[in-house]
C-alpha cells in the first residue's frame, strides 16, 4: 500500500513538473532577456549579465510618468471603489429589507457582464459629455466597473462580523456611521484589504479602458504605454521591453503575495469568487 502511494505521488509530481516546465518558459524569457545585453525572442542563456536594460528604461519618459499615471488612475479608482463599496455593503449586510435581494441579484448580474462590450458606447458617451481624455472620467468609469464585484465581496466579508458588538455600540448612542467606521471595518481588516488589493490589481493590468478613454500620450498608464516599444521606437529592443515588463508587473505580484499570505494560501480568491 505504502509503495503504491509513493508511486502515485511520484506520478503526480512528474505530471505537475511537466506543466510547470511548459508554463515557466515565457516567464524565463522575460527574466533572462531583461538581464541579457543582446536579447532576442527566445529563451537562451544571456551573453553576460547586465543591468543596462533597466538603466535604459528607468527614465521619466519611459517608466516613471506612465507608472505615476497608473498609480493615480488605479489608486484613485480603488479608493473610490472601496469607500462606495463599504458604505453600500453596510445596510445590505445589517438591515433586512425587501430591497436587498433584488439589489444584490442585480449586482451579481453586473459582476459578470463583459465590460469590453460597452467600451465603444462609453467612448461615444464620454465624447458627448466632455469626459474623454480626462483622468477623472477614466477613474469614475474604472470605479463603476469594479464596484459590483467589490460590493459583493465586501458584503460577504461584512456578514462575518457579529452584529452583537454593534448593538452594544448603538445602545451607547453611537450612530450607524460611527459603528461602521469604528467597529465593523476594523474587524474585517483582511476583507477590506482583499477588496482593495483585488480592485487595484484588476485596474493596474487593465489595458482596454485607458486605451479607449485616454488620448494624450502624457496621461497614458503603463498598460498602454508599453506598446510604444513596438510602435514609435523603430527597432524593438526586446531586452528593454522585458525589463519594463518586470518593473511594471512587480507591484501587482507583490500585492498578490501580500493578500495570499494574509489569508493563508493562495486559495482565498478562488474561494471568495465562489461566493
Amino acid at each position, binding site marked *: 500500500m505504502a509503495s503504491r502511494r509513493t508511486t502515485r*505521488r511520484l506520478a*503526480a509530481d512528474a*505530471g*505537475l*513538473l511537466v*506543466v*510547470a516546465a511548459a*508554463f515557466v*518558459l*515565457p*516567464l524565463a*524569457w*522575460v527574466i533572462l*532577456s531583461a538581464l541579457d545585453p543582446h536579447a*532576442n*525572442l*527566445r529563451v537562451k542563456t544571456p551573453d553576460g549579465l547586465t543591468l543596462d536594460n533597466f538603466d535604459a528604461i528607468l527614465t521619466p519618459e519611459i517608466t516613471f510618468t506612465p507608472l505615476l499615471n497608473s498609480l493615480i488612475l488605479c489608486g484613485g479608482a480603488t479608493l*473610490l471603489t472601496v*469607500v*462606495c463599496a463599504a458604505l*453600500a455593503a453596510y*445596510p*445590505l449586510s445589517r438591515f433586512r*429589507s425587501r430591497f436587498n435581494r433584488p439589489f444584490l*441579484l442585480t449586482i451579481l*448580474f453586473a459582476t*459578470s*457582464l*463583459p*465590460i*469590453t*462590450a*460597452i467600451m*465603444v*458606447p462609453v*467612448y*461615444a*458617451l464620454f465624447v458627448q459629455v466632455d469626459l474623454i481624455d480626462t483622468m477623472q472620467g477614466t477613474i469614475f468609469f474604472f*470605479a*463603476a466597473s469594479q*464596484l459590483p464585484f467589490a460590493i459583493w465581496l465586501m458584503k460577504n466579508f461584512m456578514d462575518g462580523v457579529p452584529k452583537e458588538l454593534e*448593538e452594544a455600540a*448603538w*445602545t451607547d448612542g453611537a*450612530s*450607524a*456611521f460611527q459603528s*461602521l467606521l469604528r467597529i465593523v471595518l476594523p474587524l474585517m481588516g483582511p476583507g477590506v484589504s482583499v477588496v482593495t488589493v483585488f480592485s487595484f*490589481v484588476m485596474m493596474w*493590468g487593465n*489595458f482596454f479602458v485607458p486605451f479607449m478613454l485616454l488620448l494624450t500620450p502624457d496621461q497614458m498608464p503603463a498598460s498602454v504605454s*508599453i506598446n510604444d516599444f513596438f510602435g514609435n521606437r523603430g527597432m524593438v529592443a526586446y531586452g528593454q521591453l522585458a525589463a519594463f515588463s518586470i518593473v511594471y*508587473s512587480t507591484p*501587482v*505580484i507583490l500585492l498578490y503575495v501580500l493578500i495570499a499570505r494574509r489569508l493563508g494560501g*493562495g*486559495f482565498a480568491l*478562488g474561494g471568495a469568487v*465562489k*461566493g
Partner: protein
Amino acid sequence: MTTTAPHPRPTKTPDAEHPARGPRLPVRILPLTPAIVLLLLFLAGPIAYCVYIAFTDLQLTGQAQESFVGFDNFTRAFGDEAFLNAVWLTLVFTVLSSLIGQNTLGLALAALMQRASKPVRTLTGGIVVTAWVLPEVVAGFLLYAFFRREGTLNAILDWLHLPSQNWLFTLPILAVSFANVWRGTAFSMLVYSAALNEIPKEITEAAEVDGAGGWRRMWHITLPMIRRSIGTNLMLNTLQTLSVFGLIWVMTRGGPGGRSQTLPLFMYEQAFQNSLIGYGTAVALLLLLVGSLFSLIYLRLLRTEV
C-alpha cells in the same frame, strides 16, 4: 474625490425610539447612494446608450446628426462575412481556451496537487498563479515572444527535430487560444483546489477500499460532488474569455487577415478603424446579450446562495 456627491452623514438620525433595533430608513438608504449614483451614471448609462446607438448610424467623424436606422446594423451584421468570421472565431477561441483548455487543465492540476509532494505543489502553483497575476498586456508580450517565428516554441521544436512554423501566421487563433490557457488556468485551478479540499476524505477512502480505480473514482465520486464548482467555473471562464481584448491585440492585432479577430476586436475595428460607431455598437450589443445570457445562467447556479 470631492466630486463624488457630498455624502450626507447619516449621523443625524435620531434613533432614540428603538435604540437596540438599529437606525431608521434614511440610514438604510443613504449609504447606498454613492454606489448607486456611480453605477447609474457610468454603468447603466452606457448600457442604455449602447442600446440606443446600436439602432443609429452614428459615425466617428463628419456627421451633423445621427439618424435612427432601425435594425439596419443588425441585418448588415448577419450579411457581413467578416462578422460571421468573428462569431466563428469567438466560438473556437471560447471552446478551445476556456471550456477545454483552462477548465480541463485547471481540474487536472488541482487533482494532481491533491497527491503531489508539497515542494512540487508549491512550485507549480506559484508558476501558474504568476502567469495569472501578470498584467494582460505583459502576458501578451511574453506569449508573442514564445510563438514568434524566431521564438522559444520553434527553438524547442528544432531541438526535437520537429518541423517548426510561423505560428502567429499559420495558426493565429490556436496561438491566442494557448495564450489564454496560459493566462487563465490558475483561476480554474484555484476554484477546483478549493472544491476538492472540501470533499471528505472518508468518501474517497471508502471507494478506494471497495476497489474503485483512479478514473472511476474521479468520474463517479469526485466529479458529481464538485458539479456546482464546475458550473460556476465554466460560466466565469466563458464570460472572461468572451471579453478578452488586450491579449489578442498585443499578439496579432486580430490578424493576419482577420484570422484571429474575435468579436471584441471586430467591434473595435468597425468603430474606430472604419469609423462606424453605430455598427460597432450593434456588435457590442450582441456580445452584451450573449454575456447577459451566461450571466443569468450563472445567477441560477448560485440561486440558493443569495
